């Protein structure tokens, strides 16, 4: 099975923040980096996220495998953007500085490079924060944090159930697929595409049936222990908000406001150095 990111307590100040704070941070940060294309702001956010990453004491090795994946994905995306729309930067920044003619209709311009650099930067501002969120938030706290920011406790608990049963499901997948391979179902590349889809279905069917049985049992178990009795519930694993949490959230809100102001001040989401 592929490696998954997982929480471990390294005891940093980031770890000690409440899950609610980190969830808000993650959401507002995502939102800000989604809205803005202002290069200066993106650069600032990128530097800040690197600093925060450093403070968190998370080892680079813990994320190296996922970083590789992200970089590959990013490169493909950047190339795809260029192939589909080599003049996108020119359109956005309303000017054209040719570097070199490549082939056919494809020319490399400073504006396109700048635009694609911004796309990459957008990734980089969000990645460290998203990684940190996963690596420093105790999954037990996650459901209560969702509940605290206003999501119904039932949906929040659905998320907790997902986190609880992912490892069990992965183990079941391996078991079922081994059983099917022993009966001669070929999961390798040797057979035709349609056949391979059907072979995966042969693994999914038992897995799905046992999931349906699980839904039945878990529903009964939760009902017997009073889930859904009241309009709210408390959380054993919730972490109290401390002074630092409020400080971080305040700083975030200020950042978000500044981001919006800077971004839309010029009438465009893009910072245009060519104007």
């Amino acid at each position: 099975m592929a490696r998954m990111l997982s929480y471990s307590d390294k005891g940093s100040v980031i770890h000690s923040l409440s899950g609610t704070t980190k969830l808000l941070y993650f959401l507002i940060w995502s939102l800000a980096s989604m809205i803005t294309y202002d290069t200066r702001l993106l650069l600032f956010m990128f530097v800040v996220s690197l600093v925060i990453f450093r403070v968190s004491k998370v080892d680079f090795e813990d994320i190296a495998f996922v970083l590789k994946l992200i970089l590959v994905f990013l490169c493909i995306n950047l190339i795809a953007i260029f192939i589909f729309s080599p003049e996108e930067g020119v359109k956005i920044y309303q000017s054209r500085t040719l570097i070199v003619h490549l082939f056919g209709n494809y020319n490399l311009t400073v504006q396109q490079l700048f635009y694609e650099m911004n796309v990459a930067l957008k990734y980089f501002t969000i990645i460290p924060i998203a990684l940190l969120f996963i690596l420093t938030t105790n999954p037990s706290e996650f459901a209560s944090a969702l509940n605290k920011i206003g999501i119904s406790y039932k949906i929040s608990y659905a998320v907790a159930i997902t986190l609880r049963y992912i490892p069990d499901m992965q183990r079941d997948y391996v078991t079922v697929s081994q059983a099917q391979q022993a009966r001669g179902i070929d999961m390798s590349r040797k057979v035709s595409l349609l056949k391979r889809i059907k072979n995966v279905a042969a693994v999914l069917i038992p897995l799905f049936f046992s999931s349906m049985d699980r839904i039945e049992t878990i529903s009964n178990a939760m009902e017997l222990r009073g889930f859904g009795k009241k309009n709210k519930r408390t959380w054993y694993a919730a972490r109290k908000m401390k002074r630092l949490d409020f400080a971080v959230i305040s700083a975030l809100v200020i950042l978000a406001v500044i981001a919006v102001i800077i971004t839309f001040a010029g009438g465009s989401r893009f910072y245009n150095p060519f104007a």
Partner: protein
Amino acid sequence: MRKAVIEFKNFSFKYRVQKLPSLSDINLTIYEGEKVLIVGPSGSGKSTLANCINGLVPFSYAGVTEGDLRIKDQNPAELGIFGLSKLVGTVLQDTDGQFVGLTVAEDIAFSLENDCMEQSEMLGRVAETAGIVELTQYMGHSPQALSGGQKQRVSLGGVLVDNVDILLFDEPLANLDPATGKYAMELIDRIHRDSKATILIVEHRLEDVLHCNVDRVIVMTEGRIVADTVPSELLSSDILKKTGIREPLYITSLKYAGCDISASIRPEHIDSIVLEDLKDKLVKWHENNIPELNEPQSSKLLELKNISFGYEKNRPVLTDINFDIYKGEMVGLVGQNGAGKSTLSKIICGFEKPSAGTISLNGKSLDTDSIAERAQKIGLVMQNPNHMLSKPMLFDEVALGLVTRGKSKEEIDGCVFDVLKICGLYEFRNWPISALSYGQKKRVTIASILVLKPEVIILDEPTAGQDFRHYTEFMEFLLKLNRERGTTILMITHDMHLLLEYTERSVVLAGGRVIADARPALVLTNDEIINKASLKRTSLYELAMRTGIKDSRAFVQHFIDYDRRIRSNGADVKL
């Protein structure tokens, strides 16, 4: 006067989707502080009875009720399932399904959270409860890091935390190894004494529950209560035989010896039974027993040489495993949870590659064979049939292995029908799998393996979750395969009855090593092996000790031989 906490009066229940009632004419009163065992074969209605008490019937499983049911003088229909959950705590059989928290502490806290208890109060209550169920050092563990017995204790903690008056256990022994099961019964007993709660245990493994004292046993069959009595009366009657529930082994052997069992000799426990008048008969029976000749050894079929394995470096799961399986044998592979039994079966089937060592079949190494190639020679039947069944129709399921190997239609039909006849499934050949019982599904998975004509079949926990009748039926079927078709069978199991009754040899794993490879009679009478492998000493051994029979191992072996002769004559077990 004793106070009634549960009262069924002329009570009947029929599930909406079924034609016949699952419970008929139930009259039963359970008194405060009692410890009651409800036994019965599968389908006898014992689980339905339990579900009426905790409210799953009728709130989750709709149906029609008649008559009257009161729990603590209240009407369950008015209390609702949430009101009932304050009175009745249920520990379900499926410990993975009941464990809904991400850690032990959260799961214990689950019902307190639903009651909106303040976190500060919750912390204390959970810590206290974790202490009662002996999980204090596991509070932050995830369910994946716990054994079956520990998960069950979490479930118990999760209901104890509510201070309920009635505790309901649904087949608490089903997924536990013998030593853990014994420990679970002792824990339940201690909680019963300390909390004065009323305790109901639904089980079919009578001898294991009677390890600790119970006040009353209710016997159910076909939706009706056929006995409501104390253990000593039950064991001296013929009710168990009639309803197909296994009696304790020491009782069976005393009966073989021609002893009369009456309630006055207190037969409910091997330590309490008065043996003075029975001793002579038993010793005589033991001495008259003719030892069965050892069968001549056949040739080696499967050889494991120096097998080692680990998922991570420096953390070996298996170390230097050596043993052989001979042609036509039925062998048991035993050991506690996490001893590496399932991993070993995966290595034999080629799902995992050993870090060292060689496996050979008929003297030829299997190391370079693919999973599918090995499957032609060695078949693995998994514990849960639902993990193997992927076709809606029985015929297609059994044919699957042949279809993927590109056999012709005629050949497939011929092979599948042959196998279905052997497995007693021929008459169901056009049925959907969903219409079959659990035991029949299990047979379908064996049929789907047999159709590839393997020389060895490995079965993972073949009898888990089956009652005595189905157990006997299923094991006799395997025995027939073994005798008549010469299929060699390796069984991974916790079940000590299975070891005694159906295997010639037990390979015992502990800590990733083979610690014994011997006759079951020897394994189950050796304290060191029993402790290391989380097994339990058989009560036959205790019986031998108490009647002064010196060679207890020989006594156990005599019992096994005698029992097999009786069964092969069909005198005692009717299917």
